[in-house]
């Protein structure tokens, strides 16, 4: 049983745990690669609002890699970061979203989002373990940029609450995907895979910044 499992009270049978993170991560990857159905209508009523909001973070690769990086880093840091970050991130993101809705300008939002991928990816790649409050500030600061980008889209939705719920849940599931993949870090080979994933995310951030 690794440290992450011990801290979260996972009482697994003695012969099963070593392959479990790999199995979970593989399952998560398979789910992520499932083809999405095509929707003829979007933005109509509560269901349309929810679907629009749910899709919004998924259609922006810069959002996707940054959110997965948050989950990866949380899993890498272990408790309490693994659960503090997914709770704090949506609330800080909502604050950024509120600024976007209110029309408060934040300069260089897209640069901030690309930078979030670089910084968070590097944190994972370098296996950085700063104090939890430092990690929370780093993640929180970038959450404002992501939230602002989502918030500016909100007024165009048919149902504002459904749209918001959709994109918050979608973002949370991306974190969860990152956490599940990050659990590979409890396995010696998986640790290198996770760090390599962080490096790929950082490089993707550089590409976003360049384009």
């Amino acid at each position: 049983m690794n440290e992450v499992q011990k801290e979260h009270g996972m009482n697994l049978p003695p012969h099963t745990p070593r392959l479990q993170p790999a199995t979970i991560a593989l399952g998560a990857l398979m789910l992520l690669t499932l083809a999405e159905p095509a929707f003829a209508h979007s933005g109509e009523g509560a269901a349309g609002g929810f679907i629009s909001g749910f899709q919004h973070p998924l259609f922006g690769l810069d959002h996707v890699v940054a959110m997965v990086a948050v989950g990866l880093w949380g899993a890498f840091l272990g408790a309490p970061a693994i659960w503090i970050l997914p709770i704090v991130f949506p609330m800080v993101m909502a604050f950024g979203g509120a600024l976007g809705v209110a029309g408060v300008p934040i300069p260089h939002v897209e640069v901030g989002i690309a930078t979030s991928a670089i910084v968070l990816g590097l944190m994972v790649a370098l296996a950085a373990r700063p104090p939890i409050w430092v990690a929370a500030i780093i993640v929180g600061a970038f959450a404002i940029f992501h939230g602002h980008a989502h918030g500016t889209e909100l007024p165009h939705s048919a149902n504002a609450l459904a749209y918001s719920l959709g994109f918050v849940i979608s973002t949370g599931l991306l974190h969860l995907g990152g956490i599940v993949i990050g659990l590979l870090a409890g396995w010696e080979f998986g640790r290198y895979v996770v760090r390599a994933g962080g490096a790929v995310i950082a490089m993707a951030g550089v590409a976003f910044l360049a384009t």
Partner: protein
Amino acid sequence: MTRWAAVFAVSVIAISQQSAPACAHQLVPGVTGFPALMLHPLFLPHQLVCIVVAALLAGRTRPASVAPSIYAFGLGLVAAQWLRSSLPWILTHYWMALLIALVISAVIAALLERLIPPISIPLVAVLGVIVGLDTAGEGPTFSDTLQAVAATFLSATAIISALGWTLSRPWPRWVDILARVIAAWAAAAGVMVLAFALKT
């Protein structure tokens, strides 16, 4: 407790057997009357999220207080009907009241490590009032209102008891963390829409 459950069940059955009003709209094609009224809170995001947050509050409270929370929610539903008739102007501020109550309740459900009944039960009652203010019969009669309130109460009871009871079991810690994450999602969505409502 068993006798009260029997009285409750008989009351619900009796109310559901009353003549169903004509529905102006059908949420699910072919489903009308009392079952349609029961589906109403499940298809309205603002009502559903309020009920789910109430269930999270009930389930995260120690000692377990699912039953008192259900009673508090029911009282809130009834109080809301009195408010609707006595203070109709309150409905003009409905959306703002909903968002403020939702954000406060969800933030407390997400951030507090340990919830206690004196905090959670009043919040559940307030959420009951919020849902109740948006619960109206399809017709103008007392019977119509009674059916709508009973149907909403039944749906809310199902969600609060199922989710609340599940959360109140001695699960590993991550189950409580998951409940807090869901509450954080509700709070975040509420903050966004509150900003939107304040702007417009």
